[in-house]
């Protein structure tokens, strides 16, 4: 059975580019309670930014939709979940191939 988190927070925001910085800064603020190193903070911000950008660019390419960010703390571990309700990936395996690169 999954343990209960020691702390958690959730945010919902529209898939606007201006919310990328907000999302990574909000997670960094939440993460501060674990006394991360600067490098750990930067790495989490990078990961959050990429995931949120994915939602903005790929989940809702032609519209504005909702992005849900949930962060949970378990001891000295933080788990961040970023969810959308937009377009999915019909075949997930090619997206794992680094040779297939799509830039916008």
């Amino acid at each position: 059975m999954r343990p209960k988190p020691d702390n958690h927070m959730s945010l919902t925001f529209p898939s606007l580019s201006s919310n990328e910085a907000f999302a990574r800064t909000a997670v960094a603020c939440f993460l501060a309670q674990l006394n991360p190193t600067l490098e750990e903070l930067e790495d989490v911000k990078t990961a959050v930014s990429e995931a949120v950008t994915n939602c903005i660019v790929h989940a809702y390419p032609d519209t504005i939709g909702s992005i849900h960010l949930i962060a949970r703390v378990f001891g000295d571990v933080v788990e961040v979940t970023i969810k959308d309700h937009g377009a999915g990936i019909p075949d997930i395996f090619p997206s794992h191939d680094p040779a297939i690169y799509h830039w916008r």
Partner: protein
Amino acid sequence: MRTIDELMELEIPRITTLDLQHLSFMDSSGIAVLLRAYRRMNDSGGGLVVRNVPSQSLRVLQAAGLNRLISFC
């Protein structure tokens, strides 16, 4: 990127230097900007130098392998 493009059109530089000292954050969209600038300079036979790269940006660029393509100082 549009500003970098416009400046390159205007100046037609042999070497383009991008100073990132005031860059607070970089993710994959930043990689795309640098790659595009690199390709543009490479196509015209010129060079690209990127300097004053903050630590977070440097790790992102190294993770993408851009340090093998572009000079960072």
